[in-house]
């Protein structure tokens, strides 16, 4: 398996996932983090929340991961946009990240984006 076949999960905050966002694209690989609000056993769909925004996660491909309401989870997968802009992330991997400092995490993501943008400009120059 070569690295070209696996897209990295771009780090996004849930409030950024709105239809006008550059991250809101069919099939886009994303990494999302949020508190588990609801888990529907019949469909294996989890709903996570962060910053007032929610996202549905299809966890059918995940084994060995227990779900506890109120715990914080992180998922990497592909975004599937359904009619009327309903989005669901089809998770490839997931993990419990209880104890994570979400404020620090989101601030660091912004710093990283700036760094990666500078790096890209440097490589292109």
């Amino acid at each position, binding site marked *: 398996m070569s690295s070209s076949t696996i*897209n990295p999960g771009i780090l996004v905050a849930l409030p950024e996932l709105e239809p006008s966002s550059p991250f809101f694209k069919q099939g886009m690989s994303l990494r999302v983090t949020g508190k588990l609000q609801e888990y529907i056993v019949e469909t294996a769909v989890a709903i996570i929340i962060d910053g007032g925004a929610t996202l549905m996660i299809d966890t059918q491909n995940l084994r060995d991961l227990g779900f506890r309401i109120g715990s914080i989870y992180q998922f990497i997968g592909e975004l599937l946009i359904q009619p009327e802009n309903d989005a669901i992330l089809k998770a490839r991997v997931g*993990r419990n990240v209880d*104890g*994570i400092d979400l404020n620090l995490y989101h601030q660091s993501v912004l710093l990283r984006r700036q760094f*990666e943008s500078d*790096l890209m400009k440097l490589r292109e120059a």
Partner: protein
Amino acid sequence: MDPTQSAHVKLLAADLLSLTARSAGAGVSRAGRTITRAEAVGVVVSRDRANKFLRFHVDDGSGCVPCILWLNHRQRPGSGGGPSYMDLTAEVAAEHAAAVRLGALVRVRGRVGVFRGSVQITVGDVVAERDANVEVLHWLQCVRLARLCYDVPAPARPRS
């Protein structure tokens, strides 16, 4: 000697994967500095176990770093040391392989090389990280080190 030649250089995947190869076996180069070892932290997103090796990818959000962990220490006569040394090395490699689970956050350190035109890490050690905050710390260290150290031209060699 330039310290980046002997240290495990902390790099984000996007940075690591954009490095250019030097001559065969001489590592890779970043901003004119030779890099032979690297450290990456991320989530295991693929795992392909063969008889002699474990190949996996670590995703840190900026790229997926290909890693190879050799498991054939008992089958390599030229690997040095006696049988007990090789047993111990094989045991350590097996422990490392056990840490590489799909979805786990891992810290990988090893030699940087080029395989079929792509940068990869030949794993020296890999550990599963329990605290999710260590990944954030690693990102900040990568950014800080790049700006304050790796992007700064290497010191000139003293004349002997």
